[in-house]
């Protein structure tokens, strides 16, 4: 047997201070005598609140309940709750249970969900973990996602602008020394290193990072050359324990010579070390001695591995 019943489904509820609304800018405060006479005529003495109203939109099946109450600061708050009323066909036994009287701590609750106990949360999505192997392949090789017909140039030779890696350029031996000469010749001028190779026109709609755009070249050249210098005296320390701090590294490497920079890779969330660090010495000789001295050194129950840092990808 099928019974019909009405179920009040919470859609969410809104809450705002009266004073926030533009049209009727009243800020009611209990205990103060600053009310206008109009309010007193409308609502009588303080502590009196307008009666709750109910509005039922039959077309949309929406029920709006408006209530007024005092909040903790003594201000009057208007609470508007909107419910969707649905009629659902259910089996007789469930329908009978729907009309049971509330008991225990819920005995005083009005029909419908009590907002103190039942809260509608924000929308969340189930996160699907797709086929692991497939997703890993995709992550490893973003090139495979791109169309393979060669219209999109991914690799561009720095020498001849051809569609191959710079090292495999057929004109490497002939063109590169020429370009280097050009570069050297350009150095004393204001135009920096990348000027001859840097893309000059924005035609073609290709994205050019701000640092490579025309007019943005001034500061960049210097800092780049600085970094180049630094990298020559940089060592990479791996197999560090999780608890390692920068101060520990400083203590460990300072005996070998002045250090210009220590970079310890850390997890963004936990702040723990990821197990490797880069150390820039002022002098390359110091770095070499540090490698000699510390490589294979037992530190915090792990054996350190120290080597020259590979230069970061050169542009």
């Amino acid at each position, binding site marked *: 047997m099928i019974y019909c019943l009405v179920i009040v489904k919470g859609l969410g509820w809104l809450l705002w201070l009266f004073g926030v609304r533009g049209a009727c800018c009243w800020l009611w405060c209990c205990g103060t005598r600053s009310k206008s006479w109009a309010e007193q005529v409308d609502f009588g003495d303080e502590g009196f609140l307008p009666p709750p109203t109910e509005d039922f939109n039959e077309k949309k099946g929406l029920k709006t309940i408006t209530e007024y109450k005092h909040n903790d600061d003594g201000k009057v708050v208007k609470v508007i709750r909107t419910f969707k009323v649905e009629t659902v066909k259910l089996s007789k036994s469930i329908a009978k249970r729907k009309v049971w009287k509330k008991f*225990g701590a819920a005995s005083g609750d009005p029909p419908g969900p009590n907002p103190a106990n039942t809260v509608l949360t924000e929308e969340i999505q189930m996160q699907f973990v797709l086929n692991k192997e497939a997703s890993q392949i995709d992550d490893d090789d973003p090139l495979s996602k791109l169309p393979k017909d060669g219209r999109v140039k991914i690799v561009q030779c720095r020498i001849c602008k051809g569609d191959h890696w710079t090292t495999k350029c057929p004109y490497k031996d002939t063109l590169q020394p020429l370009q280097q000469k050009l570069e050297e010749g350009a150095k004393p001028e204001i135009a920096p290193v990348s000027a001859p190779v840097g893309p000059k026109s924005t035609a073609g709609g290709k994205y050019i990072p701000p640092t490579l755009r025309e007019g943005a070249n001034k500061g960049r050249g210097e800092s780049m050359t600085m970094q180049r210098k630094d990298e020559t005296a940089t060592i990479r320390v791996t197999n560090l324990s999780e608890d390692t701090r920068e101060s520990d590294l400083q203590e460990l490497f300072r005996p070998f010579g002045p250090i210009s920079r220590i970079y310890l890779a850390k997890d963004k969330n936990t702040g723990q070390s990821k197990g490797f660090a880069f150390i820039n010495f002022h002098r390359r000789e110091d770095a070499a001695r540090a490698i000699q001295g510390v490589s294979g050194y037992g530190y915090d129950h792990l054996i350190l591995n120290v080597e020259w840092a590979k230069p970061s990808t050169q542009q």
Partner: protein
Amino acid sequence: MKPIMLHGHERSITQIKYNREGDLIFSAAKDSQPNVWYSLNGERLGTFVGHNGAVWCIDCNWDTTKVLTGAADNTCKLWDCETGTQISSLKTNTAVRTNGFSYSGNLIMYTTDKTMGFPCEIYIFDIRDGSQLQTGNPMSKVPIESPMPKITSAIWGPNEEYILTGHDGGDLNQFDLKGNWIKGCKDHSGQINDIQVYKDFSMFITASTDHTARLFDMETFEPLKMFKTERPVNSASISPLHEHVVLGGGQEASLVTTTSTRIGKFDARFYHLVFEEEFGRVKGHFGPINSIAFHPDGLSYSSGGEDGYVRVHYFDQNYLDFTFEY
């Protein structure tokens, strides 16, 4: 989906259960008042007032007329579901850890903790016999002898023939109604936190602190499947609709305050029943999930967490349409 958050408890949830038709959710927590809710809109129907300690377990019978709760105040109480009044209260020596109605609703069982010099015991009552409830003399009583670790979870087997128990050390055992040990196995290496049956009682899933949930054949105890995670599993449930299981768990409760939500892995995790592979996660709780249950129609599920909230999730169409690629 837009989960409904049920906030009726002041302390962490210990167990949640749907009734047979799925219109009500029963929730027990470490505070003294178990709650009952309408699952459709999250409206609270009532609370059962009378316990004096943490309520560890809750169950209701098949026609939703009676509710059984077991608590750390050394009582197991039988309630009338419609009015929330107490029908009877069974006094025990130690805290009641697990309980359950048999399928017919005529028999009840509960197990007690091994503390204060008292052994862990299984009690079985016939609630048709009023004298048993009045005097507190059970139909049968099964002491769990000392080499066997204490019971941490228990359910009725099919046809009310036996009781299935999960133990502290990871053992699973069957006891018949006379208290005779039938058989056992030990596949888990950690405490079994939860046992839930499939809708036709042909198999059951266990959730263990050894970071796995396992699927067993009900009759033979043959281990069928294993679902691996990186954290203790507190509860696991089998979908009655799809070949899916959902696992709830996460960081141990004692370590929760020192870890962020992301690292604690408090998500509900959905695995394919056959391929043992995880395919989905649902976030929401900010503590480990202590109890998780599928709605009997498989279109929604609920989880109760250490954070004291019960969250009712109605699945989106994209879950219902989801097919596992193989």
